[in-house]
């Protein structure tokens, strides 16, 4: 909504007008193009599917495949969507004209990057192409990569769990169905692999069987869970869990919370209260407040990040379900607009499928697919 307001400067407005006109023209032209492209895309999609299958078999044989490969494999869908399109675009548009940039914009919008961020991203690429006297669209690929990596890469993505005072407390928050509980299980597994003593707290006392769900995970991973009954006060659970963690000398305490939509004022107050309780018991905690966001989420993810940040002081994002066809573009908007880094990504159902987010890798993986397909 604020998009137009921010472009209030007069000169900008004029430019906007021009660009919009060009936009419409370009759109009409493109309508014809897409029909042809679609058939081609379908063929390519089939090809990719086969390749994806092979990839999976390979993965089973060699579970310890290099991290980079694994990450890229899981992102193949993302790449297939954004990457291929961009590579296609580069191939069909040899010249860097308005058409090219308009189409680039469109591709980004379709990847859930958001109108505002897309426009800005394209504008930056356009400027830097002009400055560096790049006229060949092939070379602009590098610019796109650089620019996405720059937006995503200026933050520290490591988790702050090496604290002087034990335990390090991680609070996990998010809307309903984002994947909090599963992410917590994966996170606990990850720390366990690092020989840390982990304790979980079942702070979701609202949803039916949420406690049982976390209990099953805790048993699988082999960590202890502090829980109360369903319907209990989450604050009380957290209070107990912190004391238990101190008594048992746990290295890390991970707190699950009930999913809540960010516009439910009272529920947001409740979660602020949970944060306050943690702070009161351990002044330096929570050391991390991780917001879990489903990668299929559209522009609403920005609102989620914003409001959860206000209520709980989010320090990082876990982006889940990146193994679907979701394009994950919203990451760019969140990083840019709210300065919240993505710290972890969920890329599958397996216990080990929670990875550290690597912005450079992400940007590269995002754009490299097409090149591999050649």
């Amino acid at each position, binding site marked *: 909504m604020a998009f137009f307001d921010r472009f209030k400067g007069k000169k900008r407005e004029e430019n906007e007008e021009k660009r919009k006109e060009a936009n419409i023209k370009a*759109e009409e032209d493109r309508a014809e193009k897409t029909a042809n492209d679609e058939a081609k895309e379908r063929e390519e999609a089939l090809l990719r599917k086969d390749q994806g299958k092979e990839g999976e078999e390979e993965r089973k044989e060699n579970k310890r495949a290099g991290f980079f490969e694994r990450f890229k494999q899981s992102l193949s869908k993302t790449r297939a969507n954004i990457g291929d399109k961009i590579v296609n675009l580069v191939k069909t548009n040899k010249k860097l004209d308005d058409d090219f940039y308009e189409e680039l914009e469109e591709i980004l919008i379709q990847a859930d990057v958001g109108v505002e961020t897309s426009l800005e991203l394209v504008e930056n690429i356009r400027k830097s192409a002009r400055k560096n006297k790049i006229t060949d669209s092939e070379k602009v690929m590098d610019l796109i990569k650089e620019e996405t990596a720059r937006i995503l890469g200026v933050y520290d993505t490591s988790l702050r769990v090496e604290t002087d005072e034990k335990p390090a407390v991680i609070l996990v928050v998010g809307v309903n169905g984002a994947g909090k509980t599963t992410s917590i299980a994966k996170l606990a597994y990850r720390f366990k692999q690092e020989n840390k003593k982990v304790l979980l707290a079942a702070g979701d006392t609202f949803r039916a069987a949420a406690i049982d769900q976390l209990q099953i995970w805790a048993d699988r991973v082999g960590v202890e869970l502090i829980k109360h009954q*369903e319907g209990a006060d989450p604050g009380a659970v957290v209070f107990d869990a912190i004391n238990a963690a101190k008594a048992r000398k746990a290295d890390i305490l991970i707190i699950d919370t009930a999913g809540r939509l960010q516009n439910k004022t009272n529920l947001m107050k409740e979660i602020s209260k949970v944060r306050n309780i943690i702070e009161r018991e351990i002044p330096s905690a929570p050391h991390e407040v991780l917001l879990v966001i489903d990668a299929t*989420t559209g522009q609403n993810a920005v609102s989620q990040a914003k409001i959860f940040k206000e209520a709980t002081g989010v320090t990082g994002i876990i982006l889940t379900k990146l193994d*679907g066809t979701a*394009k994950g573009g919203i990451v760019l908007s969140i990083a840019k607009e709210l300065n919240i880094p993505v710290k972890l990504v969920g890329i599958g159902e397996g216990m080990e499928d929670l990875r550290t987010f690597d912005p450079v890798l992400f940007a590269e993986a995002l754009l490299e697919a097409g090149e591999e397909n050649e």
Partner: protein
Amino acid sequence: MAFEGLTDRLQDIFRKLRGKGKITEEDVKVAMREVRLALLEADVNFKVVKDFINRVKDRAVGQEVLQSLTPGQQIIKIVYDEMTELMGGKESKLNLGSKTPSVIMAVGLQGAGKTTTVAKLAKTLVKQGRRPLLVACDVYRPAAIKQLQVLGEQIGVPVFSMGQNNPVDIARASLHHAKSNNRDIVILDTAGRLHINEELMEELKNIKEAVNPDEILLVVDAMTGQDAVNVAEAFNNDLGLTGVILTKLDGDTRGGAALSVKAVTGCPIKYVGMGEKLDALEVFHPDRMASRILGMGDILTLVEKAQASFDEKKAREMERKIRKQEFTLEDFLEQMQQVRAMGPLEEILGMIPGLGKQLKGMKAEFDEKELAHIEAIIKSMTPEERRNPEIINGSRKKRIARGSGTRVQDVNRLLKQFEESRKLMKQITDLTSKKGKKGGLPPIKFPF
């Protein structure tokens, strides 16, 4: 509330149009460009936006529109029509065949809200006098079966489960179980899965083959972005969906998925999930939703909700009071308590035509504790003061504040709110009586 952001954008755009006596083709173009951006920002699918804009543009630049006396209104009408059409035109009911038991199958991605939704659906069907059986076919997610059992218990609907067995066998067995236990609808809760997971999609096909469902409903999170159409298309291609249930529409999403899914799959949205409570499942009305998106309010839903939760006699009395402007603080208190029974106030007031915008500033002021304060304040007044708040002067205010454990500012605020709601009610009564005369809407028995 969902769509709010989109509503704001569109209202701004249309305000500009409405003000103009004469509209040129260029004006239409400019407005449509902005509508396009507004829809894109609301996560409406890219291709759907393109088609939509083209259709509206084609109709809007026609001679009779631009030369009519109220071209702005005409264009809004066109957008409203097209938007209604985009979302499916009319509401679409469940289509349960004659065989017993009927079978409903819920499918979707992980975390879309399937389990909660099937429980809500079962509750809705019980209210209609049916005897549903919930079936736990999600054998993968830890504690999914337990979750369904807990929900089933809460709504008093039996749950059929066979542990971590093959879901196809579970589905098949559930039919026998339903027959021998006199249940007439079987609702299958399947595991969440990615639409590109071929193995699990195959499993759904097998379930479908085994039980031949009357309805295959895709459960879609209303916050989904551009990917919503990919998901819906994939599920539709593999299974032949009969409908969609949109969940989490009580969030502040701009709801583009709602506008896209029907357009892409041709499957109507049958229900929408509007809250965490198990009765928060509503029939989806495309026309009313379009009206809400365009900021035109949704008086029909409001009336239905009101009728469902109000005492007819009381309502009549209240209506009389409002019309005669005899509305007192006591009524105000009672009113607030009753309105709360209808659902979140913000949502309810948002349905009143033309109010969406004005409510912005008010919404934070209503919450649960606030209501308790208001009650205390009103109860600290004398009967005379309640009937006639004009007499409340400075010293009375001090006394009331002391009596209710609040501050004078709080008393002031309540009095102001009361004054505002009096005005608001006057607006509504004026509005409804006007509409009634025109015959556009049925005469509304407004319970305020």
